[in-house]
């Protein structure tokens, strides 16, 4: 009994820790962006942490993640080091995409993190293909594809749901419904705002879930992943969530009211988990302080790493347009997944 309870507490602490890592990391990003260390588009995940953390909780290290341009959180909790993520946002050579990607295009094949895709809906077919490869090669993996409510309006969403269902591919469609496609509210762009119902039309099992409750998300994702691994084909989990900050650093946030934002902030997923853990006596203020300190040190380290990281030489500008193996060793055959693992 005590063992089970402590395992539960451990699991909760891990969920909290991951959410806090994302939150604190992004808060530092805002500061660095304002200080012109980070440039380009930067989309923050603050408020939505429960979704990434809950879904990822259901995955093993072997599973694959395809993400969006709001992917700092997904990358962090899939094990991409904070150092290489930060260096990437600094545009440095030791960044996880060697300075070619920036905030929107984080990649780490060794962690099976197939990137930030900045075309809304563009990652969905990739996920379907990755799952197809797994199926054809008899690998029992789940491919998770994160996408937002905006992507549900794209043709690629419908094509991919159909194709994945048709071929019974091991894809977990993880919809992060934060109610706004940039500035367009869900009700202004979807005739049917219950997005999970869309999946039903393709014979895909789908569950809507409270995206501000990390335990609920984790539970739904675990059930979906289990079914997928059992060969039941694709599943969709729609997490209803909210971003506390504007769409990107450029966004004046004119399309929603202050009251609405404040309302949602009362349901902050981190506060909610902390409250429940305290009630269950799973965590103390001292524990929390230690956790915060650890995370702060991790982020300090990442910033220091990025600050001193070298920049990619301009002479290397046109590298990685074609595979270097093809130029140097002629017709070498490279399986990227195998090569990286």
């Amino acid at each position, binding site marked *: 009994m005590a063992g089970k309870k402590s395992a539960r507490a451990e699991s909760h602490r891990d969920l909290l820790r991951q959410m806090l890592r994302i939150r604190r990391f992004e808060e530092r990003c805002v500061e660095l962006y304002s200080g012109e260390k980070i440039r380009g588009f930067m989309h923050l995940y603050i408020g939505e942490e429960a979704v990434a953390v809950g879904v990822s909780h259901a995955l093993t290290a072997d599973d694959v993640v395809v993400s969006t341009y709001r992917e700092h959180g997904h990358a962090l909790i899939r094990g991409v080091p904070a150092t290489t993520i930060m260096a990437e946002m600094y545009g440095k050579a030791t960044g996880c995409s060697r300075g070619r990607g920036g905030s929107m295009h984080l990649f780490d094949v060794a962690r099976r993190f197939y990137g930030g895709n900045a075309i809304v809906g563009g990652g969905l077919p990739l996920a*379907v293909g990755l799952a197809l490869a797994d199926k054809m*090669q008899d690998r029992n993996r789940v491919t998770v594809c994160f996408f937002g409510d905006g992507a549900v309006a794209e043709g690629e969403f419908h094509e991919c749901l159909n194709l994945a269902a048709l071929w019974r591919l091991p894809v977990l469609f993880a919809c992060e419904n934060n109610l706004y496609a940039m500035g367009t509210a869900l009700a202004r762009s979807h005739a049917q705002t219950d997005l999970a119902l869309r999946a039903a039309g393709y014979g895909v099992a789908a569950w809507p879930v409270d995206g501000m409750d990390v335990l609920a998300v984790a539970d739904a994702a675990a059930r979906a992943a289990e079914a997928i691994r059992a060969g039941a084909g694709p599943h969709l989990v729609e997490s209803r969530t909210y971003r506390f900050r504007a769409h990107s650093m450029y966004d004046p946030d004119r399309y929603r009211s202050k009251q609405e934002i404040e309302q949602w902030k009362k349901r902050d997923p981190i506060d909610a988990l902390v409250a429940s853990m305290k009630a269950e006596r799973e965590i103390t203020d001292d524990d929390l302080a230690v956790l915060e300190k650890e995370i702060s040190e991790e982020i300090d380290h990442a910033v220091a790493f990025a600050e001193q990281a070298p920049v990619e030489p301009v002479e290397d500008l046109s590298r990685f347009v074609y595979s270097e193996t093809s130029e140097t060793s002629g017709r070498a055959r490279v399986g990227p997944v195998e090569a990286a693992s």
Partner: protein
Amino acid sequence: MSAANTITYREAMREAIREALRRDDRVFLMGEDVGAYGGCFAVSLGLLEEFGPERVRDTPLSEAAFVGAGIGAALGGMRPIVEIMTVNFSLLALDQILNNAATLLHMSGGQLNVPLVIRMTTGAGRQLAAQHSHSLEGWYAHIPGLRILAPATVEDARGMLWPALEDPDPVLIFEHGSLYGVSGQPGPGQVDITSAALRRSGKDVTLIAYGGTTGKALAAADVLSAEGTEADVVDLRVLRPLDDATIMESVGRTHRAVIVDEGWRSGGLSAEIGIRIAEQAFYQLDAPIQRVCTAEVPIPYARHLEEAALPQVPSIVAAAREAVAS
């Protein structure tokens, strides 16, 4: 009529796919109607029966999804051959081809290569009108990260697929619709996918063509030869990266260039080749560069209008005469 070992371009392509499916179990073919129907142009006829529905996959009419899935499968260690019915339909998958296939390697700092082959039909000449007849390979040749092939001969149709599958990066193969019934020698096997080929040698003028216009350029060279003008015919074969050396070598000998391109003239491949000649062989030119391109209209249906819109042997001959005279 034909020699024993002569096959059609269609058969050559089918043989190439069959060989690839046999040689490497990571290879599979997918696209609209490639299975039960046998391929819109009957290229994959019989392959479903031979290899089964896992490796010869009919897809829904979802170009973005199945092209993107091909990219994902390539990332996952497979070697997909994706067939798109015509180049016009490929526009539905352009997002995936440009924003993912051509871009992932660079955007990921070298982590993700995409060993994918996409085949599609291109070109006019079959009265299929304006949504099945365009030559948009020049658009694709604009994109860094892709290799663009245009097999013009049975030998290339037979030999280009395997090296394309061995290429660690995405390769697009454009098959001109008018060529499927053409017969020829399949050749000994593999060919390179890096160079242009000199299909005929002459000293007076260089005709630069590719894919569906190569045969027309050769026919024009015959006409010219009867008039005493000997033409070099360069078959580009690879539209990206362009084999500048072969082009410049030829123009360096003949000092006159005629570029034949079934694409539209404005902002197209012919413009690219023309300016490269100006950049690299300006002092070799003894006459203005000539171009024979498709008229700047959507391809019309009526036969006489379609014929008038496309590069034809007489227009190539006329351009060559102009180059030699001016």
